Each structure stands twice: as structure tokens, then as C-alpha cells.
């Protein structure tokens, strides 16, 4: 069995600029993500890292190149088949959470399932919320949840279909440092259980949690290295805790 969840070959995304000029947001990128990997795509803003992630996650179509997801060539699929792939094989976590307003956590997590052929929607969604530690927030609306909790609802939504791979685009971008660490700890837990994760970030501190770091600049991969000593979010949190307690007791 093919051990690559993702195999992108010579992927490019070219935007037409006004006046006939062209901008290559992603230029001839070839990348493989293996099953069970935790990879961070890093780069400055405008480097093309998000565009690359959108292509790898089938949210956007590449201008050229080939993309195999779980062994299936997706660049030739129809819109309908792509929707099916997104539904079954991919989970997304966005910077701005993208939860439906006025819709409780449970219904937000159920969202991917209503487009699937699964039947025990409610049970699966509850289970996913439990796995991110929100069993007691099932009937809360996003407006009643903290940023960290909202992002965890979004992660539960990404997990609920049991996808092959989870893409997270700046998942900590809208969070304070404590909530960020909680989210990073959650990703590490998931990865330890075997979940494949691709994280996109411009913050080196966040990228350091991944076991592989891919650097992007000007739409090209400039380095692709194993991270020998990934940061462990759990440890960082316990280091943070006494300080806060001390702060509160002062």
C-alpha cells in the first residue's frame, strides 16, 4: 500500500495580474506527506504557503501539476467527486474558525456528516467533541465559547469524518499564547494516535511543534527538514502554569 497520503508533483498556481502580467503563487512544487506525519509548512506572509495548502487540501485547483491524495489523482476529478474527497478524506482547521454563527457546537461538528452517507450523525459529533475535551459545551453557540474552545470545536469538526489528513491554516493566529499551546497540544495528541497533520504557519515557535518543517519562500520550497527536537506543548503549558498562578496570587 502506498504510504504517501499526499503526493504533489510540479504543482503550480499562477494568477493573472492586470495588464497581462502573471504571478506564480506556487511554482513547480513537489511534495510528499507520509501517513502519520506531522508537517509544518512555514513561510512569511505572501510566500505561497496558504495557496499550497489550499491546493493540497482540494480547496483550490492548481494551474498545473499532479496531485495524488491517498493514491487517487485528484487534479482530474469533477467538482462533485472533489466534494466527496473533501468530505471523506480531508479535515480543515481555519485561522478564523469558520463556525456557523447561532449554531451550537454539536450542529457545527455535524456539518460535514450531513453531507456524508453516515447515519448516526449526532453520536459521531458528540464523540468528536468529547475527544477535544468539550463534552460539556455541546449545546453552546460559538458566541458563548472562548477562542480556544471555538478552535477546538473546529478541530472536532475536522475529525468527525475520520479523515486521512488534517490541514490547519494558521490555527493559532487568532488565539492568545495559552490557548495556542492548548491547540498545539491537541494536535500533538492526535498525531501521536496516528493522525496525519499539515500545519501552515508563519510563526517559528508554532512550527517547532511539528516533526517536519517545510520552508516556503516566493512559491518554492527552500528547505524540507526533519525537526529533531519538536517542542512539546504539554510541557510548555505546565511551565506556563506556575507563573500564572503566582501572578494571580500576588
Amino acid at each position, binding site marked *: 500500500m502506498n504510504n504517501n497520503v499526499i503526493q504533489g508533483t510540479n504543482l503550480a498556481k499562477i494568477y493573472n495580474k492586470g495588464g497581462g502580467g502573471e504571478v506564480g503563487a506556487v511554482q513547480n512544487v513537489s511534495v510528499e506527506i507520509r501517513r502519520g506525519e506531522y508537517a509544518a509548512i512555514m513561510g512569511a506572509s505572501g510566500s505561497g504557503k496558504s495557496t499550497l495548502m*489550499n491546493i493540497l487540501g482540494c*480547496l*483550490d*485547483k492548481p494551474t498545473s501539476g499532479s496531485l495524488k491524495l491517498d493514491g487517487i489523482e485528484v487534479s482530474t476529478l469533477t*467538482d*462533485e467527486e472533489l*466534494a*466527496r474527497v*473533501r*468530505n*471523506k478524506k480531508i479535515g*480543515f482547521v*481555519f485561522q478564523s474558525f*469558520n463556525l*456557523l*454563527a*447561532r*449554531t451550537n457546537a454539536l*450542529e457545527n461538528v455535524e*456539518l*460535514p456528516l*450531513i*453531507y*456524508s452517507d453516515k447515519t448516526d450523525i449526532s453520536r459521531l459529533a458528540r464523540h468528536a467533541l468529547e475527544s477535544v475535551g468539550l463534552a460539556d459545551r455541546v449545546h453552546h453557540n460559538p458566541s458563548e465559547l472562548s477562542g480556544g474552545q471555538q478552535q477546538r470545536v473546529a478541530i472536532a*469538526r475536522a475529525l468527525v*469524518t475520520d479523515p486521512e489528513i488534517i490541514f490547519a491554516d494558521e490555527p493559532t493566529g487568532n488565539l492568545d499564547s495559552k490557548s495556542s499551546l492548548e491547540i498545539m497540544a491537541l494536535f500533538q495528541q492526535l498525531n501521536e494516535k496516528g493522525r496525519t497533520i499539515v500545519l501552515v504557519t508563519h510563526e517559528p515557535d508554532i512550527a517547532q511543534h511539528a516533526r517536519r518543517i517545510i520552508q516556503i519562500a516566493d512559491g518554492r520550497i527552500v528547505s524540507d527538514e526533519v525537526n529533531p527536537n519538536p517542542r512539546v506543548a504539554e510541557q510548555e503549558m505546565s511551565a506556563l502554569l506556575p507563573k500564572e498562578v503566582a501572578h494571580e496570587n500576588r
Partner: protein
Amino acid sequence: MKTGRVLKVAFKGLGKNKLRTFLMMIGIVIGITALTLIVSAGLGAQNRVMERVKKFGLESMMVFAGAGREVGQPTSGQPATTLSLEDATMLKQEIKTVADVAPFGRKGQSEVKFQEKSTTTTVFGVTPSWAPVWDWDAAEGDFITDEDMSNLARICVIGPTVQKELFGTANPIGEQLRIGSVQFEIRGVMQAKGTSPAGGDMDDRIYIPLTTFMRRVANVDYISAIKIRLNTSKDMAKTAADINALLRERHKLAVGTPDDFTITTPTEVTKMAEKVAGTFNIFLVLVAVISLIAGGVVVANIMLISVNERRKEIGLRKAVGARRKDIIRQFLYEATAVTLTGGVIGIVLGAIGAKILEAFTQMPMAVSWESVALGVVFSTLVGILAGLQPAKKAAALQPIEALR
């Protein structure tokens, strides 16, 4: 995605945006309420016209003295003197299709007094045949008899309006009243008949024997008109031609001279009444169409705004696996649910409004379910078409473009 799930999504979406849903619905509600009310009023008016025509009688004709007289038009200037009692008798004798005739004389603006009270009404001199020919008899007391005719009796039968004005709720039978300077005993009260095809009050009348009328009240030797009851409503034109020929011969009219009488058939009465109602109806239909279009535009606008506003939601749904048609169906069901619900509410409000209007204004109302249903279908279509285009556009985007 299963239809049940899409429906659930659509209804949840509506429930979560109550203001938007309300605004969308209110346009349709107003449109359909107005339509229901207006169509009810129009249909009610039409029904009333048909009622009036039936009052005139479908198997009857009217011969008026004088040329070019139209039903319901007040006689101007000199009264026509061309029709005689003899004419009526001859019509009944000579023309086979004529079942009965009711000749009558008429004097408008007559002063009538009872003790200190007085009123102005129309005095009719009639024969006993009036009752069967018009299918219109005394409700209380008795109608005029043949004996009254030959005795030139000074008795009268009054209409309910006259009764109300002079006697209120008291029993008028046996009382004496004065028409001009002549004293009459009240013999009976007529059945109420309401409004005539032309819109006059058919109950504001006093009936006296035709002979008494000609000799003692009007002092004339002619009559105003003859109401004719036919054996059949078929061959109306043939009968009219026969009557025309007979009267021309009796009046010794040379070929080329115009008629000195006018024959009116139910067809003409219907036409006249429809002319009045028709103008009314065109206006109403115009108002109804405008209100429906306005309602449709409101739904269209809000649908358009809603779809644009919800691009992010569409992008998210697509990102988690919604197909293009799932999105389109969701918006379609939302629009249909809103406009359909709005339509039903509109019909109910309109029907209630029609009943209230009927109670307060005496305007006849008749709810026509067919046209109202058509209105609902139309507004639903507008809502769907308005929602479909932007939803299609948003659903066709790459998920990331919609999410941005």
C-alpha cells in the same frame, strides 16, 4: 445528500436568521394579502351584478315608453306618452312566447305623508300581475287585487324602506297615508329586494293599483313601461322582434321612423351591469399585480443580499464536502419555504380582512381560491428565481474563493 437533511438545514437556516426570514416573508405576506382582498372585492362585485340580473329575471323583457331609453338612466324632460295599457293587453294576447305582462306607471319624487312624518319616494301604479311577473309579492298583508283595479281602490302596498322611514318598527298595515293630496290605506308591505341592476333602492317604493294611479295620482292615460315574462329564455331575439313589430303596427309608425319605445332584454341588463363592474375590476387587477410584483422584488432583494452575505457559509459547506447541488437545493428550499409560508399567511390575513371589510362596509366579498393560489405560485416562483441565480454563482466558486 438526502432531501430530508437539506430541508432540515434550510429550516434551521431560516430559524437562525429570524429578522431576515421575517423581512423576506413580509413582502410576500403583504402582496398576497392585498391580492386576496382585491380579488375578493372584484369577485364580490361580480357576484352582486349577477344577483341583480337574476332579480330582473332571466326570462323577462322590459318595454319602456319612448325611444333610446337605457335601463337605470333617469328619464329626462317630458315623460314619454307612447305606451298604453292596451298595448300591454295586446302583447299578451298576440305573442305566443309572452306568458304574462305587468304594465306599470311610475311617478318619481312623490311626497308621502303619514301623520307628521313625510318622505319622498317613487309611486308605482301596478296591476295584480306585477307579483307573478317580477316574482315579488307582499311580505306582510296582501298585494293589489283585480277588484282594487276595477274599484280604483285607494289602497297601497309599501316597500320596506318606506316602512322604515315612516313607521320605524311599528305595524303599518291598516294605517292611512297621503300621496300628494289623496289618502290611501296601507294593505301590505313588500318583500325586500335590495339594489336594482342600476344601483337604485328597489325597496323605496309605494305600489298602488294602476287604474287609481292613472286617474287619481298622475292623471294620465299612458303607462311608463311593461315588464314581460316569457315562457322560455330561448329565442329572446325573435320575441323582441315580434314585440317590436306589433308595437310599431299599433303605434302606426311608418317605415323609416324610429321606434317610440325601447325593448330591454337581460343581455342588455347584464352588459350594463358589467360595464360598471368592469372598470372597477381592471383597476383592482392592476393594484393586485403591482402589490405582487412589489412583494416579489422584496424577496428577490433579500435573497440576493442573503446569498452574498452567506458566501462564507457556502464556502465552508463546500470545504466540508457539500456539492454544488446541495448548496443550490438549500437556498431553493429556503426561498420556497419562506414564500410559501408567507403566501399562506397572506391568504389567511386576506380572507379575514375580506370578512371584516364585508361586515363594516357592506361591500360584497367573495374569496376566489384559484386566483389566490395562482398568486402564491407566482410569488414562490419569484422568490425561487431570485434566490437561484446568486446561489448558483456562489455554489460554483472554488471553496477557498467563497471562504475568503
